[in-house]
């Protein structure tokens, strides 16, 4: 048996969790998040500044020598659990994880330092639905200028730098502010708290920073593995909130949470969340150590979506009427959970990856 992954939280990780939760309690209360979804500024850039600049969390994956914190995926996972619990509309997974991993693969120190500081936001310009290893769209490149259209790019409207794969196999950095040849057009996204956009490049100047293939693959693997922690955060909040509500809500002269049919459903959800916690910690630890990472990430993503969506759907049903209202935040969690089930590859795509990795071949 190989060495078992460390599946617990360290004291430092718990302290980090408490600090992030405090910060989000101040910045991302549910009515504020709901109001922001229909405003001109769907991203909460004040919360982002506090997290990234104030607490230095954008640079967790970046070595100290390159301006980061030199931490690991384990700490990032704890941050994402908390961001999931708050459905916080900040570009953390996209910039501090996915774009940062692509830059780490390319070894681009200049941009790494900028993203680590949190003052520059980056986005990898591929569709959010792509699983690690999936084919991605590449744009045309002519004498360093990029031409083409990319859709479903998460958090692109908040990004200062886009990392764009091109047909020559390169990954190009495009600075949005420096050119009129980039148009970022918001799409109407199912998930109100993770905005999507179309990126149109009409001769935008790009700087080749490395090879797109390995960089995109590495970035999407980290995104998929750590998304499980965000999904854990969603499920954890949904279960906690539903249990709290059902202890309070009375019908037939008793708390609704005392009916056995509902108790059993909540206990099942608890069991799923307990399992997801182990899977998500496994993925975070495997990404940190590099041990067994492909399989552990695929296992976590093959499992996580079902739990997050099931928990959100049950939370809505058990809240009943109030859960159907725009005012109650459950719909934000349902929309995020359902979108997360597609983000960085569906559970089915990750099961196929598992089949390859453990030699359980299709007929």
């Amino acid at each position, binding site marked *: 048996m190989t060495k078992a992954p460390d599946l617990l939280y360290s004291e430092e990780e718990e302290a980090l969790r408490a600090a992030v939760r405090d910060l989000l309690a101040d910045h991302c209360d549910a009515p504020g998040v709901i109001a922001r979804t229909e405003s001109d500024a769907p991203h909460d850039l004040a919360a982002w500044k506090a997290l990234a600049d104030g607490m230095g969390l954008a640079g967790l994956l970046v070595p100290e020598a390159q301006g980061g914190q030199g931490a690991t995926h384990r700490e990032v996972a704890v941050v994402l659990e908390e961001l999931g619990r708050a459905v916080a509309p900040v570009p953390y997974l996209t910039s501090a994880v996915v774009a940062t991993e692509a830059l780490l693969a390319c070894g681009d120190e200049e941009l790494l330092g900028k993203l680590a500081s949190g003052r520059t936001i980056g986005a990898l310009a591929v569709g959010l639905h792509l699983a690690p290893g999936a084919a991605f769209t590449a744009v045309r490149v002519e004498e360093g200028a990029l031409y083409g259209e990319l859709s479903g790019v998460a958090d692109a409207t908040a990004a200062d730098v886009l990392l764009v794969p091109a047909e020559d196999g390169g990954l190009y950095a495009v600075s949005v502010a420096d050119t009129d040849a980039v148009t970022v057009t918001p799409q109407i996204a199912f998930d109100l708290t993770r905005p999507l956009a179309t990126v149109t490049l009409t001769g935008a100047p790009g700087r080749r920073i490395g090879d797109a293939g390995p960089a995109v693959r590495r970035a999407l693997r980290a995104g998929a593995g750590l998304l499980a922690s965000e999904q854990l955060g969603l499920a954890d909040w949904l279960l906690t909130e539903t249990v709290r509500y059902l202890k309070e809500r009375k019908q037939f002269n008793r708390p609704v949470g005392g009916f056995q049919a509902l108790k059993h459903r909540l206990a099942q959800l608890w069991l799923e969340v*307990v399992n997801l916690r182990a899977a998500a910690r496994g993925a975070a630890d495997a990404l940190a150590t590099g041990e067994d990472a492909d399989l552990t990430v695929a296992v976590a993503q093959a*499992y996580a979506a079902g739990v997050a969506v099931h928990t959100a759907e049950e939370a809505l049903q058990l809240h009943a009427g109030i859960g159907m209202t725009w005012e109650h935040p459950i719909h934000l969690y349902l929309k995020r959970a359902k979108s997360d089930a597609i983000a960085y590859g569906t559970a089915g795509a990750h099961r196929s990856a598992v089949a390859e990795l453990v030699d359980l071949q299709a007929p």
Partner: protein
Amino acid sequence: MTDAAELKRRTAELLAAHPPATTDRLDFLKARFDAGLAWVHYPEGLGGLGVPRSLQVVVDATLEAAGAPDNDARRNGIGLGMAAPTILKYGTEEQKQRYLRPLWIGEEVWCQLFSEPGAGSDLAALGTRAVREGDDWVVNGQKVWTSGAHNSRWAILIARTDPDVPKHAGITYFICDMTDPGVDVRPLRQITGEAEFNEVFLTDVRIPDSRRLGEIGDGWRVAQTTLNNERVAIGGMRLPREGGMIGPVSKTWRERPGLRTHDLHQRLLKLWVESEVARLTAERLRQQLVAGQPGPEGAGMKLAFARLNQEISGLEVELRGEEGLLYDDWTMRRPELVDFTGRDAGYRYLRSKGNSIEGGTSEVLLNIVAERVLGLPAEPRTDKDVAWKDLAR
């Protein structure tokens, strides 16, 4: 303070004084017990040294490397896992001295006389009566689902000593001599064809009061120690990847491509992933225990493994196609050990049906999770303040 280095020293001393190659097996085990190296977290004089349980691995690894015999713990699971911790917690000094050493060595195997035909999930409703006569208790009743009763020297027994008080208050905990002429053990054949379990009929069985564990009427509380240890034992195993029920079906899938279909592939992958996640969850629970932060996850592990065992073995029967129509052997046997993965898929499918019943049904465990972990309201109770003799039955 005894640390790992000191334990290694003591283990080396034991090995030097009683070389495994030239020492009788039982003599070695007795010497190990007397050296406090049997279960190091037990007190001195009772096979331990009063040090943390986590240090046991130091002793076990050293002894295994030296080729020393072990106490074949699987043969006395009830004794080691359930009777011993209960005796340690509630037994008198005399009882501890009398029972623990032969129990640990395996000279005396134990069984459990708890469940009754009329008291399953509602164990506290049990009706086996124990009536005081002089220095003895006279016991009459029927117990069921007793594994190993036919091989056991002793049993832990709970019986009703006062029918006039509410059910939880009138129970007393005893140690029952299985060689008493009033003890009649009969095999209970189950759906697999074999008989792992027994029915045990108790007719005027005489138990001296010196074999009572805990106070009269306090048996329910004493039994909680036993039952909590059962759930720890069921949920706390460490498994390698594909170490459980998913192992055999994965092997069949790899070796026999002709059996594969797309439908079975999707179902197999889903169960493979869930098995791996359950394994990680069990590993996380184990790490929490080692770190001294036990979580409530144990109750969940039994639920998860019961469902997985049933679904995986059911899938495997289907995967085998024409062979799935066959069964390896319906002969009535009395297996000494239960090997969940030793027989064919049909057997596993049938045996695993018991996984969601034995040691607490999945329905009761869901109630326990909902009430004790999530803090949801308890089920309405109509039996709490009613004398046992007046309960509906």
